[in-house]
């Protein structure tokens, strides 16, 4: 049976982000009529990411690329237009791993060793090949390096449209001269992160959260944590036209206990967003919630790509009928957090 798993944890600190490909980020601030300057200054739409068309995968494993680009910054990339349950998906992680999720026919022709996917049963129809580009054996002259180059270039010249972001460690601005020099044969496009705002200036009702609230409660009694998450989802989709009892169109109401706030701002950014940006947003939201008395809590939701081959902690991610791998952090003023994680059918619980 397909399952959608929700987890909720009450924690006091956040473990640094675990390498998942980040497609969308949402920030929700009840009590604010517009996005505060503290968040505006670090908003992800100031960054950009890049698309390179028809890039051969072999360019991502060459020693020159690994030395000059991968080792000198955080490089995250994923192929676009490819579905993880039908096609071949390529991803590069900041840890220096190249992940190839391939189907059986391609795997048999490719000639690199990989593991069968956990989500295809006894007769494996999908395989995951992982190449550690930071390994000492992955250098010019070594057998492993020559084998990888030969498989990806001479045997099967795989090419993809690839989106990536690169943050060099020691420099303030991204210097693309090195990348354009390496990839001068290919078309590089600059893409900007798209932002979307939902603002409600009228008085709105939101759930009242406290760190004492029990996370284990039965559904339907109004204090259920899943009802709170559902309500936050309706705000995010701009669907919380709260009617109340007696209203014909909708009798859906905010779960109790609830409180009134002056307005809500919900800002969403879509594109390839780095995990460093999420950490900055989290830090800024944490200090903002503590300092502003009118903001009862803040919510930071992060969505991963549906077609990413990996999710949390480099575990395999699949797509059965949905590929959701998202988490929401509800930040409370007393330095506690609620962490919600939504996992799809073909995902391993982190």
């Amino acid at each position, binding site marked *: *049976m*397909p399952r959608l798993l929700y987890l909720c944890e009450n924690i006091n600190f956040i473990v640094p982000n675990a390498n998942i490909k980040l497609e969308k980020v949402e920030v929700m601030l009840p009590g604010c009529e517009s996005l505060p300057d503290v968040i505006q200054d670090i908003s992800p739409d100031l960054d950009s990411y890049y698309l390179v068309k028809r890039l051969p995968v072999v360019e991502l494993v060459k020693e020159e690329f690994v030395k000059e680009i991968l080792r000198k910054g955080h490089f995250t990339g994923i192929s676009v*237009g490819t579905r993880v*349950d*039908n*096609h071949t998906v390529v991803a590069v992680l900041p840890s220096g791993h190249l992940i190839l999720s391939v*189907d*059986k*026919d391609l795997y048999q022709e490719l000639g690199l060793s990989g593991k069968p996917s956990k989500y*295809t*049963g006894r*007769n494996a*129809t*999908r395989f995951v090949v992982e190449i550690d580009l930071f390994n000492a054996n992955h250098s010019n002259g070594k057998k492993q390096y020559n084998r990888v180059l030969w498989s990806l270039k*001479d*045997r*099967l*010249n795989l090419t993809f449209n690839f989106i990536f972001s690169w943050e060099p460690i020691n420099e303030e601005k991204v210097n693309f001269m090195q990348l354009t020099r390496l990839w001068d044969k290919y078309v590089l496009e600059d893409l900007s992160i798209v932002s979307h705002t939902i603002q409600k200036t009228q008085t709105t009702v939101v759930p009242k959260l406290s760190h004492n609230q029990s996370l284990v409660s039965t559904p339907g009694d109004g204090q259920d944590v899943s009802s709170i998450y559902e309500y936050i989802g309706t705000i995010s989709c701009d669907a919380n036209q709260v009617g109340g009892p007696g209203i014909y169109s909708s009798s859906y109401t905010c779960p109790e206990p609830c409180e009134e706030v002056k307005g809500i701002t919900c800002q969403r950014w879509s594109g390839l967003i780095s995990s460093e940006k999420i950490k900055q947003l989290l830090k800024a939201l944490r200090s903002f919630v503590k300092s502003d008395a009118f903001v009862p809590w803040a919510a930071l939701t992060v969505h991963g790509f549906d077609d990413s081959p990996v999710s949390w902690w480099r575990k395999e991610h699949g797509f*059965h*009928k949905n590929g959701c791998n998202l988490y929401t952090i509800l930040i409370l003023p007393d330095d506690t957090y609620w962490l919600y994680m939504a996992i799809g059918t073909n995902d391993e619980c982190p």
Partner: protein
Amino acid sequence: MVKFHDLNIARVKDAVAQKHTLRIACRLGYEVVAVTTVLKNGNELTAAPPPIELQLTKEEQQNFQQLSRITVVLSDKTNNSYLGNDKIKSYDILAVQPTTEKSFQVACSELNVDLITFDFSTWLGFHLKHQYVQTALRLGKYFEFTYGPAIRDTTCRRYVFQNTTDFVQRKEGQNTIISSGAEWPTDLRAPYDVANLAILFGMKEGQAKSSLTSTPRALLLKAATRRLTVKSSITIGHVTSIPEKDKWKIEGSKPPSTDAGKRQNTDDHDEPKKKKSKKLKSN
């Protein structure tokens, strides 16, 4: 997982509607489709028509594959001797549609076909005996049913659900593919919707999705062995027909020159194999 297949798109006379149906199939996410010609009378047999030209983008063109399929309607009086001829072999997939119990038995046990399909939009007229189904599975044949009639007509919908749930319960969806049988673009549904529909028919989650992906892929490989190989074991092609990227496969296995080859072969046969002697342990 593999690509999504729809191996039964009906051939219609209206070329514009046919192109539109195929284009919609491509946009919905199907990457391998087969256009079906239905044959009721053996005298009307013609060779496979060429693939229909569609105005697709380059990337869509790269991924979209059009195949040809022939469905022969069988009855007790049908003469099936033409099923092995070259015109039939020009089609990628050979399917039969039995209409009586005897033709079903013949299709399962004797005929060299890839696919056995049924018209579930009405009462079949005969029972699907378990032993014939097991014979067909043992011989590597596949079964198919279409969901198109369920979309077109409410009466047909009842029959389709009744017949498919009965069929799936007996066989549990083994070696079964689902296809649209689409005559119009409105008869097509997206692959994930069809997978959900298969669950309503009684299939399990994994089988529902594999009836659109891995099972049709296995069927196409089986059809290729029927057409292109001798006794499903060997196929012969000229070296010049190998694509450039595959030439490394033959470079390492060049046959030696005739004299040296013969000498090498005779040497292998002349020398008797030395028997390994086992030393007995002394007590």
